[in-house]
């Protein structure tokens, strides 16, 4: 990749802005047959919890127009097994690793951050605050500025200094900017916007909710406009806070839309279920889209949509035509 797509998230430098979204890349091994993981800007892990967790019973997924409803119940092997089996493999792949953590209490989050403190090879921590707080009648941390802030403060206090802490926020709150402010006040270096939003489907043949979890998280292109709105609003309020945009990124132009709204990187989630090689394709398309707009550095495009009409970003001369791309119909074994 050229310097055009290099990006920074605060102090964290990435060769490109395309990441996997938490919970959508498995342990990483499953994606390896389809592309070289080191070509990702970063690999975001499935949320790690203190204990192994089976999650919810099936059916866990329902298809909705341009989206998926999922109620997984945060399945995972637990931090012990993650540190023993999954993380060393990821480190071998020479990919920047962002570890997503989730807990049921502030203490559990702090404990996870403490466990990760002694581990090298972690580029950043992403805090998944879409978890029920068992100490507060199961209310979700991410829906309350105070609870979200308490989690971030605990994690920031325990995490290794120099490892940035990102917080992933869900959009279905009264005011996402208030929660974003609370997280940044509590010490978060950056934000991931957005997590899934709650939805529900009912199976017309069984006459019952389609998911065992009754309601589930809606993801995919269906929520992209919501995600772009959240990134735009939060970037307007906190222009110096780096944002990882997520929510229905399926093409390079989708990624560009997030960048223009204020994201310095994008995470690809549901698109990977549909197209395992989506991430490298989106990166290639994003680079072409930047070149076509004569934008020489991704950073020049971050938040561009906030500028007044008529503002012209720094431009570069058009490049000579790129070498031929792979023909359609060819085996995309290793992109």
């Amino acid at each position, binding site marked *: 990749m050229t310097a055009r797509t290099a990006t920074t998230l605060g102090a964290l430098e990435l060769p490109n802005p395309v990441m996997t979204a938490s919970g*959508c890349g498995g342990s990483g091994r499953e994606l390896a047959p389809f592309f070289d993981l080191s070509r990702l800007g970063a690999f975001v892990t499935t949320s790690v919890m203190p204990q192994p967790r089976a*999650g919810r019973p*099936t059916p866990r*997924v329902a298809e909705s127009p341009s*989206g998926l409803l999922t109620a997984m119940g945060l399945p995972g092997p637990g931090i012990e097994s993650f540190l023993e089996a999954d993380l060393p493999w990821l480190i071998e792949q020479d990919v920047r690793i962002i570890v997503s953590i989730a807990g049921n209490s502030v203490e559990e989050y702090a404990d996870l951050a403490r466990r990760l403190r002694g581990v090298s090879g972690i580029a950043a921590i992403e805090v998944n605050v879409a978890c029920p707080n068992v100490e507060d009648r199961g209310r979700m941390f991410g829906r309350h500025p105070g609870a979200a802030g308490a989690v971030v403060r605990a994690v920031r206090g325990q995490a290794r200094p120099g490892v940035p802490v990102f917080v992933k926020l869900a959009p279905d709150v009264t005011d996402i900017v208030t929660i974003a402010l609370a997280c940044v006040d509590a010490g978060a270096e950056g934000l991931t916007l957005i997590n899934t939003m709650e939805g529900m489907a009912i199976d017309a043949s069984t006459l019952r909710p389609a998911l065992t979890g009754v309601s589930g998280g809606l993801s995919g292109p269906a929520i992209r406009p919501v995600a772009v709105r959240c990134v735009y609003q939060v970037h307007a309020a906190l222009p110096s806070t780096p944002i990882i945009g997520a929510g229905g990124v399926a093409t390079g132009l989708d990624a560009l839309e997030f960048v223009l709204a204020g994201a310095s990187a994008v995470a690809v989630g549901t698109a990977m279920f549909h197209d395992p090689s989506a991430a490298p394709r989106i990166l290639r398309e994003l680079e072409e889209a930047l070149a076509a707009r004569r934008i020489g550095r991704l950073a020049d495009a971050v938040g561009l949509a906030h500028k007044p009409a008529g503002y012209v970003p720094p431009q570069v001369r058009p490049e000579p035509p790129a070498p031929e791309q792979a023909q359609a119909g060819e085996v995309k074994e290793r992109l």
Partner: protein
Amino acid sequence: MSDTPVQTSATVLTVRQVQDYHALTLVAPAVAERFRPGQFVALAVGGEHTGRLLRRCFGVYEVKSDYGGTVELVFADTEPGTAWLAGRRSRDQLDLVGPLGRPFRLPRDPVSCLLVGGGPGGASLFALADTLLRRGCQVHFVLGGTSGRQVFGSRIAQRIGDSFTVATEDGSMGEAGTVREVMPRVIQETGADVVYGCGPTALLRTVTQVAGDFGLPSQVSVEEFLQQTGACGIGVCMTCMLPIHGEDGVTRMVRACADGPVLRGDRVRWGDLGTIPFDALGAPHVLNLSERAPR
């Protein structure tokens, strides 16, 4: 590595109606050359700008070397995605990922094998039968269904099998009855050493039980469960989980796609499908002992 899956744009060769099902033949040399019986493929549906994001997973009926390598699938159109596939024409392009999952394990010696199938999923048994026959095994078929139209592959089974039994509930083809009723007799008559099953989940449970009654090992493909619950086919989405109890006695939730679709029948907790058994690793504990009210 030849056993890694590939993502490829496959060309439709033919789409045919076969009884109640559709048979789709795709030109996909890279998938055909890597395929081993029991593995499946995952197809994107709805075309390039589709709003249907789930991949549809299908077992493979047959691979052939024509046109560089073809893959044939058999499926029922039960929902809009499969109906779209059934409406494809020759020369259409489909995004195909495969071959995926673990294949049937094959016996080392030329033993007598019983292959039990039902519905469109039973189609996967024919690729297996081919391989078994080439290794000198005896292949006996038992096919079941509610009516004759739902029994796929009876003619081929008759042609290639050493024996062949059909049981339909309405008696419209073969014997009137269920697989459970005919299987014990067939096992005794054929002296089967190993049982393979593919088809509806209820059938697989029966296959496992009857095989167990005779002390025979069973391998079953949970393809239908995967079709109903899976989303990606490659093992990242974690939606096709089912409870398996391991050698160590611990029940774990495993993925039907990446850890299956072929599983040892006796390892699957058939009665607990669609649940998280309370004793599974990582199962939620609703009540801790200390929380229980004293009585």
